């Protein structure tokens, strides 16, 4: 990987899907596949794409053609395709709403249609990396505007008047001189026959004319269905004749079944078939773990059949994975010099000459997504053509993987995307869809639904990586920080895609470490080695969680050591408003979330501004608090968005912790749907409080020690974060929109523990909190 230029690319996608991309045509017909499109647009003098993003570098790139995304029925119903997956972030609403707004469609007459996996047709569909708005707000606006212009043109043709005399307005076109009006339904046929306007002829609306964009007044599209039980998730799919499968998977990754009692399982009434799925050697990408599958007439019979299997396992090379031992090994690694990743000045010299050295170590264990809907997928194969229904964040990749697995051409595979009952990164990995394909094949193409139970989900995940963070700061006699050394040790998720690099890749460093924004003359970031002994996945905000926890805890530790206020010292360490450009000082090209640095630089002015805003909103230093309560603050840039959080904790005499109030300021550039931004920040606080208090996946003898919500606890109502106040920094449309789904998570834990320190004097350096206050 070293030496390759990853600017403008999404590393995972390109490493894992490089082969698939070979031979993909980039343009044809009406579909403008736009690997090169933003550049072309600007060369054309078009205003449709005002700034560059990395969207074109993703598999499938960008498509904005209204012939692909929009159709108008003769009754006036406007159907808008959503090519992204809905997992709770608002994808079904926010982008279609932008199309509707630009095309002057009335939202109450809009139907949102979920696209199947087809990236040649729709552009990139990977719903992760907090990318949907970031990469598609411009193309979807252009799409809506183009549709509007086509409807206007259709009206002009029908009336035989010049284009300049007509204007689209709320689902109809008006002939301005005469006041004549014609509804979209009546224009549908003519408009559909028109060519897509050239990009440089597309005129976007002036933001002052927006009906929906930026307002946050549109209800989420699936709201009614969800509240009446009609919303369909992958667990709910059951085509005619579906049978149900559960799989006994190896408890240790790369293990294999030695023996099993198929006859006993077949004796369970309703069981139809038992068969083995072999494991795939690493790097296995998202191939199934293997195991023994039991297919039955209903889920209950399949579960009973699996219980009767009595599988004996050959555990394989990961049987020695033990979380306690591994933690010690990582700790030792972090105490030795590592591989330089970013270097400015001379840290060793500065530390040697420092008046005071503060040295701290932080530990963050494995975590798991535990999406409320456990993974599930259904597949049937008709005439050699697989049809899959799955709750995947990656329908395009799923299509390619299923095709490869079954040895059929990709265009023979249909992947229907259901609603996702939570995603958080887990459902970017389509192992469960591949399992369904194997089961259906085994059943002669009959539809089979593979269901993961909660235990399956918790024990066979793609885990948030375990990590050890070692930060050393040197202070001069005036308590100025003159040296900052941060060593990060963590198994890499790249181990799914390539021989295990045993250290964080450029992508993982890009997740909140390489862009360390501190104004310190001697700064050195290093990685240490740690092998992957299980499947490492990405979990909402990924390595930003450990990186932010360590950095922002350390800031508060230095503040405490030197008697300064957390917020003041944080601002001081960040230093003046400027662009931090680490590109000349890194060992490998900077990964800026796959987007151009020119569009999304590291801007400490914006980081400072969210800190100042949140401090003001939370009345930092001024709020009167009950006994045992205190505030803590932290800030972090992730997914090109700046977030600062103030957490209030309350601790009673028994060490019980509550979180009565959370204030979060977010700068995500232009905010397309403030209502869903708020709900993401509320959800991020709850999830991050779970991470802070409970999240801990541990391994012994290679096996996950947790099973269900009894020993893998998640936050329940009333436990805290019930009053989350979101403060959105105002920006016009010209400020590039950045990520929202993930950035709320990273600063929460350090803010929480900084508050806990202020309330109790106790510094917690290992996640989760558990009963450390009682200890």
């Amino acid at each position, binding site marked *: 990987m070293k030496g390759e230029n990853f600017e403008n690319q999404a590393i995972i996608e390109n490493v894992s899907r490089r082969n698939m991309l070979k031979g993909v045509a980039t343009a044809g017909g009406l579909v403008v596949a736009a690997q090169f499109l933003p550049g072309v647009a600007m060369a054309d003098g078009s205003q449709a794409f005002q700034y560059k993003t990395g969207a074109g570098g993703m598999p499938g790139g960008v498509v904005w053609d209204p012939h692909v995304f929009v159709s108008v029925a003769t009754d006036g119903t406007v159907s808008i395709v959503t090519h992204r997956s809905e997992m709770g972030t608002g994808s079904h609403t926010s982008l279609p709403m932008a199309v509707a707004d630009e095309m002057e469609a009335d939202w109450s007459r809009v139907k949102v249609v979920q696209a199947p996996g087809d990236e040649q047709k729709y552009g990139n569909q990977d719903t992760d990396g907090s990318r949907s708005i970031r990469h598609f707000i411009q193309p979807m606006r252009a799409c809506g505007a183009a549709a509007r212009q086509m409807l206007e043109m259709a009206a002009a043709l029908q009336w035989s008047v010049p284009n300049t005399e007509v204007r689209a307005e709320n689902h109809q076109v008006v002939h301005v001189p005469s006041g004549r009006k014609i509804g979209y339904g009546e224009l549908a046929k003519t408009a559909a026959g028109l060519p897509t306007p050239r990009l440089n002829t597309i005129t976007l609306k002036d933001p002052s004319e927006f009906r929906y964009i930026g307002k946050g007044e549109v209800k989420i599209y699936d709201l009614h269905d969800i509240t009446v039980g009609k919303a369909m998730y992958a667990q709910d799919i059951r085509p005619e004749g579906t049978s149900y499968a559960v799989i006994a998977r190896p408890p240790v990754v790369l293990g294999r079944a030695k023996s099993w009692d198929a006859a006993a399982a077949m004796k369970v009434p309703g069981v139809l078939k038992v068969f083995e799925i072999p494991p795939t050697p690493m790097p296995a990408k998202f191939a199934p773990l293997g195991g023994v599958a039991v297919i039955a007439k209903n889920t209950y019979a399949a579960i009973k059949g699996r219980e009767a299997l009595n599988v004996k396992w050959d555990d394989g090379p990961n049987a020695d994975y033990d979380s306690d031992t591994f933690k010690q090994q990582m700790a030792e690694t972090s105490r030795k010099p590592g591989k330089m990743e970013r270097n400015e000045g001379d840290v060793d010299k500065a530390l040697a000459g420092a008046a005071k050295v503060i040295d701290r170590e932080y530990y963050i264990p494995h975590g798991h997504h535990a999406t409320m809907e456990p993974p599930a997928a259904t597949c049937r194969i008709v005439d050699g053509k697989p049809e899959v229904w799955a709750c995947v964040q990656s329908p395009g990749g799923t299509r390619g993987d299923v095709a490869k697995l079954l040895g059929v051409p990709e265009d023979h595979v249909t992947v229907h995307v259901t609603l996702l009952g*939570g995603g958080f990164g887990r459902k970017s990995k389509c192992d469960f869809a591949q399992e369904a394909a194997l089961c259906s094949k085994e059943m002669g193409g009959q539809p089979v639904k593979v269901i993961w139970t909660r235990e399956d989900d918790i024990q066979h995940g793609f885990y948030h990586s375990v990590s050890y963070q070692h930060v050393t700061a040197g202070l001069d006699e005036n308590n100025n920080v003159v040296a900052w050394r941060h060593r990060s040790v963590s198994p890499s998720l790249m181990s799914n895609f390539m021989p295990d690099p045993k250290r964080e890749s450029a992508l993982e460093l890009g997740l909140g470490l390489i862009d360390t924004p501190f104004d310190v003359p001697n700064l050195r970031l290093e990685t240490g080695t740690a092998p992957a002994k299980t499947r490492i996945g990405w979990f909402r905000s990924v390595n930003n969680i450990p990186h932010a926890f360590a950095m922002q805890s350390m800031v508060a530790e230095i503040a405490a050591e030197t008697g300064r206020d957390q917020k003041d010292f944080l601002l001081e360490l960040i230093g003046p408003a400027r662009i931090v450009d680490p590109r000349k000082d890194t060992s490998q090209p900077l990964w800026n979330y796959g987007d151009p640095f020119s569009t999304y630089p590291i801007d400490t002015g914006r980081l400072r501004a969210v800190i100042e805003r949140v401090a003001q909103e939370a009345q930092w230093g001024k709020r009167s608090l009950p006994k045992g309560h205190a505030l803590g603050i932290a800030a972090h840039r992730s997914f090109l968005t700046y977030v600062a959080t103030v957490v209030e904790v309350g601790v009673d005499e028994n060490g019980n912790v509550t979180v009565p109030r959370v204030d979060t300021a977010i700068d995500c550039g232009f905010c397309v749907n403030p*209502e869903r931004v708020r709900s993401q920040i509320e959800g991020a606080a709850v999830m991050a409080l779970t991470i802070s208090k409970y999240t801990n996946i541990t391994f012994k003898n290679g096996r996950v020690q947790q099973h*269900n919500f009894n020993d893998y606890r998640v936050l329940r109502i009333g436990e805290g974060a019930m009053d989350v106040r979101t403060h959105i920094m105002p920006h016009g449309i010209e400020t590039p929109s950045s990520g929202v789904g993930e950035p709320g998570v990273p600063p929460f834990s350090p803010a929480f523990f900084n508050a806990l320190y202020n309330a109790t004097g106790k510094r917690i350096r290992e996640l989760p909190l558990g009963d450390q206050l009682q200890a």
Partner: protein
Amino acid sequence: MRVTVNNQVQSYDGDPQMPLMWYLRDELGLTGTKFGCGIGLCGACSVHVDGKVVRSCVTAMSDVSDHKVTTIEGLSPDGNHPVQKAWRQYSVPQCGYCQAGQIMQAAGFLNQNPKPSDEDIHSAMAGNICRCGCYERIFTAVKTASQEV
């Protein structure tokens, strides 16, 4: 055995130990009742049996013989139960997967306790997990609905 589901009488002759949840989902196709944990810890599978909330994943078919089961699909003929309305008013859901269970829990609970305190709401809803973290809005919606039922 016979069981009434959303006012329709059904006959069942399968394994009496089968959890009601799988019967509703796999046999009747009433997939509004969700599978979340299977052991009574998350509330996604909540339904009403004779008006009281139960976790259908830990309720055997034999337990509902000759009883009346109501699922989210049958909670209100027009989908406008005060709890459902409050849920829409506050745009409670994110992914939505837990929400049918949350709504059934809230509706059953408000039936028993129409004027709950804040603490009552917390403890009544504490068995229902929302991994997306919609708790603040769930609380607000339950409180609002309680002023209406």
